[in-house]
């Protein structure tokens, strides 16, 4: 439980952090809230030569609005995201996901950037990032680029952010009028991470479901949008029967994870249950 020795560097700007990353030749790790990285170091699962602390880079902090887009700095803590009026009003799934993370101590230190780059498949943000079609802003030696939610999560603990890049911000569009939202989570009773987490955005128009976005984390190696559920509910009146039928489609075609707490079969079942519950809650939120 003692990390291997490492050098510590503190970046004072995004540019400096990117330069330090480049200089390290792939042997450095960015340190944000440390709530995933430090345990990894203590277990010696990672042995970086250098930690580059971005904790005091002001340009990565805070939550602001850019027209209809909410800009969440990579260093915004889970608690800031969860309690932000703007995020709660315009991207409630992201706020709900943040609120569902760990406990208050974790939410006070952990950051949205760190959580997204860590990309634990059982973490809470990914489903909301997918339903809210967020864009991740990434800066590397060649400048800044954006990555869509659909392209961001690559594999278990792997994202589109390269070793020489920094995630700087998450841009989320405000949800459309008439949209109801919900993020519901079945937490692993031991770790608190999501066994199944389901986010839903349901846009109702004239008593009909005009569009639906439904996404899961916890179920498979990578968080995913569930087109089966979305297609099944879209165009219906989103009543109990329609929701139940749509929920039955959840997880189809996915290879579910299996662990000591929940077998793949049980996870697949829970995905259906949570699809139903999240849809119902989102529909109720829309009205």
């Amino acid at each position, binding site marked *: *439980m*003692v990390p*291997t*020795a490492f050098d510590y560097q503190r970046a004072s700007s995004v540019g400096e952090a990117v330069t330090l990353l480049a200089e390290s030749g792939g042997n450095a790790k960015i340190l944000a809230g440390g709530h995933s990285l430090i345990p990894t170091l203590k277990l*010696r699962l990672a042995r970086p030569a250098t930690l580059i602390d971005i904790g005091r880079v002001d340009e990565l902090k805070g939550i602001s609005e850019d027209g209809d887009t909410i800009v969440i700095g990579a260093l915004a803590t889970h608690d800031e995201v969860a309690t932000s009026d703007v995020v709660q009003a315009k991207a409630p799934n992201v706020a709900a996901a943040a609120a569902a993370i760990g406990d208050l101590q974790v939410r006070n230190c952990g950051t949205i950037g760190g959580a997204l780059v860590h990309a634990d498949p059982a973490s809470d943000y990914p489903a909301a990032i997918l339903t809210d079609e967020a864009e991740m802003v990434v800066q590397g030696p060649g400048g800044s680029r954006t990555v869509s939610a659909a392209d961001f999560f690559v594999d278990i603990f792997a994202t589109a952010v390269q070793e020489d890049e920094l995630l700087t911000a998450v841009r989320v569009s405000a949800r459309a009028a008439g949209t109801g939202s919900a993020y519901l989570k*079945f937490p*692993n*009773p*031991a*770790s608190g*991470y999501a066994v199944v987490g389901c986010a839903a955005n349901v846009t109702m128009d004239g008593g009909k479901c005009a569009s639906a976005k439904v996404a899961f984390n916890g179920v498979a190696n990578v968080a995913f949008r569930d087109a089966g559920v979305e297609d099944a509910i879209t165009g219906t009146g989103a009543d109990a029967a329609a929701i139940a039928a749509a929920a039955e489609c959840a997880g189809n075609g996915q290879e579910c994870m299996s*662990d*000591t*707490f*929940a*077998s793949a079969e*049980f996870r697949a*079942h*829970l995905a259906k*249950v949570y699809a139903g519950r999240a849809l119902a809650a989102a529909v109720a939120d829309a009205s």
Partner: protein
Amino acid sequence: MPCSSNRTMCSRGSERYRITTESLTNGFNVNKSSGYTYIGKPRKSIEGGRKVTGSEPYTSDLAIAGMHHARPVLSPYAHAGIGAVDKSEALAVPGVTHVLTAADLLTRDAVIKSRNTCTLAGDRVIFTGQPVAVVIARSAEAAETGAELVHIEYDVRPVAANFMTASGPDAPEIWPDGLPGDQSIADGHATVDEKAATKEVEKPKNVHHIHRHERGDVEKALAAADVVVRRNYRTARVHQGYLEPMVSIAVPDPMSSGVTIYLPCQTPVWTRDAIAELLGFEKRQVRLVSMTVGGGFGSKNGILDPLVAACALATGRPVSMVLTRTEDFLTTTPSAGGGWDIEIGAAKSGAITALRADIRSDAGAFASGLGSLLALLTGSYYKFPNLLVEVAEVNTNTPHCGPYRAPGAPQAAFALESTIDDLARELQIDPLEFRLQNCVETGDLTVSDSPWSSVGLKTCLERLREHPAWRDRNCAANEGVGIAIAIWPGGACPSSTVCRVSGDGVVTVHIGSPDISGTHSGLVLVAAETLTVSPDQVEIVTGDSDTNPHSVDAAGSMVTYSLTGAVLEAATGVKTKLLEAAAEKLEAHVDDLLLENGAVHVNGVPDRRLTIAELAAEAETNAGGPGPIMADGRAAVPINAPAATVQLVKVHVDRQTGEVTPLHMVAVQDVGKALNPLMIEGQMHGGAVQGLGFALHERMVYDDDGQLISASFLDYDLPKAHQVPTIETVIIETPSPEGALGVRGVGEPPIIPGAAAVGNAIRDATGVRINELPMRPEVVWRAIEKDHGTHS
């Protein structure tokens, strides 16, 4: 060295006396007409303030001059021969001073026959997590790096990981030459009479012991019964889950040519003797300084300490070893899982006629010692005119199972009380009335035909019958209420204390038994009551095996029962000496003197008075007088005082996800006489929560290769505050006829019935019987699905 013993540290922490310990007299359901001033009144724990403020020192807080850090190298295989060990790379790490293997230790020729005796493996390992080498270094970092670089050749062998299949044709024989006998410490937890036990039976492969108890004719009685319920149950292996991982610091002692060990220890007598034997030392060459135990629940009995002592002696240096949580899961002694095939018959009248139980218990790699207890706990709560109980103790390539608070009892109660509940349903008899009709009373027989000594189970049931949570129970959809009973047999051990008063008026009681459950905070009240002083004026001195008066180890709910008489006698002896000293000073006859409010005065003349401080100061300085004020006390209670309990749990079941939410819990417990009800309530709360752990949460999972795959708290689910319901405690006082003041053991009973009560509540809510612990969501969901399948 910062301190020479725990005692120095305790008296240094003189803030103890400034912690306010006002009595909280509200809300306790105890006999109030006792006439006592302190006994029976709830009072905060002695060390509570220090624990809450973080100032209580634990073993890993100690820094001893020259202390080196040790890291164990644990076997990654469950069964393997050990080949060459290459230490060179590890020894090259800056700061690493030694890499030790079995041959380097004093214990090299000792017979490895239990977890407590396996310091380092020599030629083979028989469970994953068995220590094979130790790296000693000047820093914890260097030791950890060194441990990664010890290269050990293993010749991997087939594994018997599962106790249900360990007797099968494919399983390797773990002890082909027979298991070296060992009386496991689990036996120390309760007095089990085995006179009628064990006919010699042919033992299947990897079964090292079969316990068999027979009464009457079970076959005939089951055939004649009006109703028979037969069930199969499986219970998981669970861990004690204490907060403080195992830790030990050993210091070679030039004075005794032996060793001093700083450790959290609940069984200092047993552990000192075991370590001395293992090291080939005289007992007096092993000195234990028992530090505050950060949770033990049966496990802190000397698992790490022989190894750390041997390392200190091999290197000549103080050596500290602190396990990580994962190492702790891998290499300590969890509680056994088991399998029950159980059948109970009854007549239409509701009278139980027969019990047949076939039990398999997972001993892990060494001899279990749990079998006789499992038989007792399965076959002794009810009057069974006919019974056949057989327990097979099975070896597996997994860590040695050890004692956990009421060893084996929650598991046995789950099997028994689930079956009893179903039987009551089949008979259409109220489950509480059914239990009242059949449960044992004083004099009824245990499984081995010896009579129960005084037991107050019926009173507990009658009390719960009147409780609104039972009497007025009403359940919304998917809610249910379940109850279950338990008796912990308890035990007793000869114990002694010394009580003295010093010139500053402080009353000191020397107690050898460590306090892992609030026992000291009860015993101070006995001394305070006897000497009419505030409990704040009484100090307990404990912790040093060189100076402890011999006393019961903290196991088996025995401490208060064994010691109360000794404390009472010692304090009474001190009182006599105070009165004698006062008689001389006040020139009055002893019979005319009264001890009140910490002072002696002449009856009717309140002004002619001397405080105990004055009397003690005088006694300490008066040459030619009676001498300083002190007295000893001894007790050797002849028999055990069983402690009964009944618990009620109300649950909600989510039929879609299988999640079970406990909504409310009532714990009724016979404590004999409550010395400090606040401590007892704490024990009942804690035990009830651990019972919920058995019921819904905890499970150590091994794969077929004997690899532990739930080796951290990310996977191992301890119950947490937000998952625990309100727990109402009801204290019943049926005084024990033996021992002093009527007290009974308290610590173990409250962990026992919870799992069974939750199972019965789930049955009540859903109509589905869960036959597996823990009743985690997937298990409950599958059972509901299956039940749905059979009905539709």
